[in-house]
């Protein structure tokens, strides 16, 4: 019994974390006292099959899949609720354990509809994965299966299929522990049990798609992603969510051959734990080819005309040579990478002596807002990075919207780094209209094809989107967030700001561009 674990002892354990050493599948593992065998196994890359355990949630111990054998114990124990103790000898591969895992899987499949051919989870489903790793048997279930409600709209981005559900209760715990919205419960008992919302409640918050992620089967699917693409056709790249200044680590899923992105999922990191918000998840949409500025554009006879990148950059360079530095305004949004800002300011401020640098921000933003979980009111990924890049070239500033200053009639040339995510800039359309009407020659670096439909701009340079860049953002608390891998741009001519600057500076030369398909 556990009468020995008094509050006193727990307090002491906090003061001086004691290491315990135990054996797992013959391997000696040292972990801090209080660590479960499951946590220890996960840290040491030992896979113990499980459904209900999730590192970001409390232990439920209900799927009974993570059974392990402890030498000297009367029966198999579940690794998720088993504290690692000194000298303990544990096996997750013993013949008895393997047989138990097989049966545990079969119990999960007894009433599962096995509708993989029409299920979005297929390809990333726990039932499928574990069938391959610990199953591979012919089912003994030859009776009619339990029938339950399907395709339920229970709010948010979610569609629920209670037949596919294996009742692991991860979603219920997420609602209780993470969003604290408590909308979900398990109703009825035995094999009639179903997940559902409490009477009068819907799932209504900004974190709903996390339920799709943590659902180990296809019970929760995403309205947005549903039936769009088989997951095995997708490639994923580790990046950073650009939706706000938190800088959640994410994986972006796209299909480069189609120049299309399909979804964003959170990637575990110290900043965001295991989660991300629905707002952030949506930020792949502006990257898709159909919304992208496909080529550079110049104004010819008060009309936008797509031109070669070389021609647009040459015209910009010519303009730059024709005006005084004091007649140039740089209008910069906070949605570019640190590396892009460094090159941009070095070229225009340090080398070209342009001193008028203005921040382009959403006038209605409430920068200090925070939802208590992840999303911040500063919907720019790199406010801190922009401010520190400006400081590097001697401009001290606080986050302020200085958009109107760039419209001053004293400027003959405005070079703007436009925001790339329209969701984050409710006032963007109005600002763009104003900017296009400015008397100055306006050159806008942008992602969006919508700019090409505004006649007043003089020069448009197509930009890479955030998932198509390497580099870093600096988040709200000054943490450097690396965009670790990138997709080839969805439009061939797209440039990073750094590339554009190098081309202007002549340190990079135009080459026949090949669209690399990975």
């Amino acid at each position: 019994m556990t009468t020995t674990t008094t509050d006193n002892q727990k307090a002491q354990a906090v003061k001086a974390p004691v290491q315990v050493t135990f054996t797992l599948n013959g391997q000696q593992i040292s972990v801090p006292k209080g660590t479960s065998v499951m946590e220890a196994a996960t840290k040491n890359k030992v896979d113990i099959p499980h459904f209900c355990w999730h590192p970001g949630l409390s232990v439920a111990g209900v799927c009974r899949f993570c059974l392990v054998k402890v030498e000297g114990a009367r029966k198999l124990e579940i690794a998720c609720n088993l504290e690692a103790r000194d000298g303990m000898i544990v096996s997750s591969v013993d013949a008895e354990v393997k047989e138990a895992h097989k049966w545990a899987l079969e119990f999960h499949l007894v009433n599962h509809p096995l509708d993989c051919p029409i299920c979005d989870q297929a390809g990333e489903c726990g039932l499928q994965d574990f069938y391959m790793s610990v199953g591979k048997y012919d089912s003994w279930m030859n009776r009619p299966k339990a029938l339950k409600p399907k395709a339920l709209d229970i709010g948010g981005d979610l569609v629920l299929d209670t037949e596919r559900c294996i009742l692991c209760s991860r979603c219920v715990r997420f609602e209780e522990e993470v969003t604290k919205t408590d909308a979900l419960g398990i109703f009825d008992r035995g094999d009639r049990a179903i997940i559902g919302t409490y009477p009068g409640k819907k799932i209504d918050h900004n974190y709903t798609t996390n339920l799709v992620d943590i659902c180990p089967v296809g019970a929760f699917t995403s309205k947005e992603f549903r039936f769009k693409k088989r997951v095995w056709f997708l490639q994923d790249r580790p990046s950073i969510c650009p939706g706000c200044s938190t800088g959640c680590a994410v994986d972006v899923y796209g299909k480069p051959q189609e120049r299309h992105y399909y979804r964003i999922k959170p990637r575990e990191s110290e900043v965001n734990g295991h989660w991300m918000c629905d707002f952030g998840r949506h930020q792949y949409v502006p990257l898709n080819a159909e919304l992208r500025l496909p080529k550079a554009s110049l104004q010819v006879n008060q009309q936008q005309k797509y031109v070669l990148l070389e021609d647009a950059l040459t015209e910009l360079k010519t303009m730059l040579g024709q005006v005084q530095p004091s007649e140039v305004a740089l209008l910069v949004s906070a949605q570019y990478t640190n590396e892009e800002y460094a090159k941009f300011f070095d070229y225009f401020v340090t080398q070209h002596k342009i001193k008028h640098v203005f921040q382009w921000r959403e006038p209605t933003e409430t920068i200090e807002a925070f939802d208590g979980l992840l999303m911040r009111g500063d919907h720019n990924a790199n406010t801190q990075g922009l401010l520190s890049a400006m400081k590097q070239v001697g401009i001290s500033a606080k986050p302020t919207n200085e958009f109107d200053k760039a419209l001053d009639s004293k400027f003959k040339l405005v070079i703007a780094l436009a925001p790339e995510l329209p969701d984050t800039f409710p006032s963007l359309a109005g600002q763009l209209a104003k900017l296009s009407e400015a008397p100055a020659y306006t050159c806008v670096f942008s992602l969006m094809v919508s700019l090409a439909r505004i006649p007043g701009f003089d020069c448009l340079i197509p930009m890479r989107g955030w998932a198509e860049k390497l580099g870093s953002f600096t988040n709200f608390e000054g943490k450097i967030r690396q965009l670790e891998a990138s997709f080839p741009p969805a439009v061939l001519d797209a440039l990073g700001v750094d590339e554009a600057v190098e081309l202007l500076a002549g340190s990079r030369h135009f080459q026949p561009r090949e669209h690399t398909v990975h």
Partner: protein
Amino acid sequence: MTSTASSQKIILAHEGMANSRALSTYKANGGYTALAKALKMQPTQIIDEVKASGLRGRGGAGFPTGLKWSFVPRDITGPKYLLCNNDESEPGTFKDRHICTVSPHMIIEGIIIGAFTVNANKGYIYTRYEFQEEIGYLEVAIKEAYEAGLLGKNILGSGFDFDLDSYVGAGAYICGEETGMISSLEGKKGQPKLKPPFPAVSGYLGRPTVVNNTETLANIPWIINNGAAAFKKFGTEKSPGTKLFSISGPIKRPGVYEVPLGTKFMDFLNHQCGGMLEGKTFKACIPGGASAAVLTAEEMQNVTLDFECLAENGSMLGSGAIMVIDDSQSMTDILKVTMDFFSHESCGQCTPCREGTGWLANILEGIKERHATPKDVDRIYDIAKNMSGKTICALSDAAAGPAMSFIKKYGDEIKHNLGAEHS
């Protein structure tokens, strides 16, 4: 029961007395003298006495009561609770309701002594919804006890405070499992909790909690009054005391009986219970409630009614619910209603139990519909075997145990009748 047998009675000592439930009757027959005595003892003395008596839990698991009480930490402050498990729901069991009917004050006295021992100031009697009459008896008794200063503040001038309430469940079998009961009492869905932590450390509302069965607690006053040695004169070495048995089936006198543990089953059946009904032949017996393995009539010949003998025979004493089966009954039907019960009552939390109990019931449905092969019968055994020992609580084992025993002992009969009509 005859008056000569009353010398053997601890729990049902007042059975047959006029107004046996009344506080005045209870007191006139020595009631609450044990409480007065206990309140003057040290809690550790009481634990030692109960340990020495060898009293084992009467709810089914047979865990030593004194040991259970000793697990409650003594050195921590804050509320502790004692809960009386009166959720009697094991099919075949109807003994606790009988205690409520005969001597509700005996239960209450046991509860107060237990609470004093573990220093709990609040307790609940958790009774299943269906026992409406018995709930009434308990509530009247609680009211009487409050009025007599036996509950509430400063009980009998001892300085010990204890409040007791009656709580009515919703009729779920799983709420008889102690942590399921705690969940239910907390206002949550009646589902067992993951252990560790155990209730003695973190139970009701996360506080140290003792859960004892009604019959267990009813034994306490007698033990305090008469001592462990006197208690051990009843029963066997490992199963001391008397036990209530609720016996049903095609026998002459079904009902609740208090007999010393270790009594020979056939003597009990043939003497107290009057034997089988005319024309009925004893075929098999489920000796400890629906979750106990079935024993054949042959196996029952030398069985004594105690924890150890029934365990040796591959079954269990359980809650003392003896169900006698005669040779006109279909083993398929009995197994099916049993599995239907467990499938209906599984809380659905742990996968092997949720899916396994349903699967077993489903296969038996197929057998009843005559859509089954002998392989399906064998499958019942394999499924049950792999449900055992894998879940948070014992409900999965409670279903698996009888299923395996039925297939082992009556599998051939079930297979033989696969094509036959079932009523």
